[in-house]
């Protein structure tokens, strides 16, 4: 029986490949955009302006606090009622980018706040501009705190991208659901789906670990 199931699974590999492609495309585009926007929002949020900071805070709370399914649902199905018509792929990218940006914003804020005030003072005292203060002093030190959860977030987002099947995109998880109709072995099918995600996510995790070690070396790593 397993043999027969495997055989019929093998026939679905073009579909699976397309699904994997969709997952990778969606994740890649929205992670790059989301990271840029997320860092921007995080920096703005920790900057002096109260109004900007609380507006960003409220938006981030709203997005972090509601299910992604609902967000994507609103963007794809409800925005048209307000005259904004988007195709499914664009809607998916926008929703995922927004989600990524909001989560990354919080991570960046926490990282920036973890940098000792003495460091900011030293940068202030030498007359570094706001940009250079961030770029040269604060962010590099914050990155040590930011990197592990950031990669965690990337990986979560890649997996969250499966929600796009609600608006008709066929991603890797959706392929799993389609295939399981004919090969009713959830364990086997989703093991393979899991393997697909692993292939995408694992290199990312490894890369982060490499970077982390490199930064740790320069800081004189803590020996517990």
């Amino acid at each position, binding site marked *: 029986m397993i043999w027969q199931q495997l055989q019929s699974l093998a026939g679905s590999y073009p579909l699976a490949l397309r699904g994997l492609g969709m997952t990778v495309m969606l994740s890649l585009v929205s992670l790059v955009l989301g990271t840029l926007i997320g860092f921007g929002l995080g920096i703005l949020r920790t900057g002096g302006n109260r109004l900007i900071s609380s507006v960003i805070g409220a938006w981030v709370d709203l997005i*972090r*606090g509601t299910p992604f399914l*609902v967000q994507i649902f609103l963007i794809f199905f409800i925005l048209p009622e307000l005259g904004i018509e988007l195709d499914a792929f664009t809607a998916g990218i926008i929703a995922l980018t927004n989600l990524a940006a909001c989560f990354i914003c919080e991570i960046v804020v926490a990282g920036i706040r973890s940098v000792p005030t003495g460091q900011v003072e030293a940068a202030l005292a030498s007359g570094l501009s706001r940009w250079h203060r961030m770029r040269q002093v604060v962010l590099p030190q914050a990155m040590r705190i930011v990197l*592990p959860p950031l990669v965690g977030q990337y990986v979560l987002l890649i997996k969250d991208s*499966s929600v796009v099947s609600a608006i008709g995109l066929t991603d890797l998880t959706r392929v*799993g659901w389609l295939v399981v109709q004919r090969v009713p072995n959830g364990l086997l099918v989703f093991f393979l789906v899991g393997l697909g995600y*692993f292939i995408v996510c694992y290199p990312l995790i490894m890369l982060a670990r490499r970077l982390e070690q490199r930064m740790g070396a320069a800081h004189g790593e*803590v020996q*517990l």
Partner: protein
Amino acid sequence: MLENFSLRTIVEYLPLFGQGLVTTVWLSVLSFAGALAVGIVLAAMNLQRGWLFRVPAKAYIDAVRATPLLAQLYFLYFGLPRLGIILPELVVGILALSLNSGAYVAEIIRAGILSIPRGQVEAGVASGMTYVQRMRLVILPQAFKVTIPPLLGQAIVLVKDSALLSLIAVAELTRAGQLLASDRFMPAEGFITIAAFYLLLYYGLKGLAALSGRWLGLAGART
């Protein structure tokens, strides 16, 4: 879908949402407690110098983070019975969420601990504290300060992930909204209500995180 948005139907379904909310809350609380336990153990293993503990911990953390919860859920729900272990859905659900979130929590804790300046560890060492005392009195309280925000983030992810348990027949909050969508064909009403309830949970969690920060006496812990 917004023009004929029906508040009345939402009110009619409120008891159902209420039940779902309760399930989601206690499910999440138990799972997060589990995740913390798993995470602390994994982080401790991962921070050891010897490979005996570190390597398996790392492998577990990577494997869990790199694969979707869905696959893990199936692994537990359909895989365990093949080994002759049949557990109730709720138990499988809590187990899956704990084991999954635990891997993320472990990474968060590890990052927090590594962010503590070396001098702090040395001060603890020099005053003759044991490893456990150092952790408890010096490192963890300071690490908590940096880990509270990401832990909050993980808690939120967990609460929302618990929706996936509807796949294995656990009736939680999302389920109530989906019922409204499939019985009455009112998806907007169903989904927006779910969102409102999750937002409520989110603010609750955020308040808790702020409280626990104050409670741990971190007022003076700025450097």
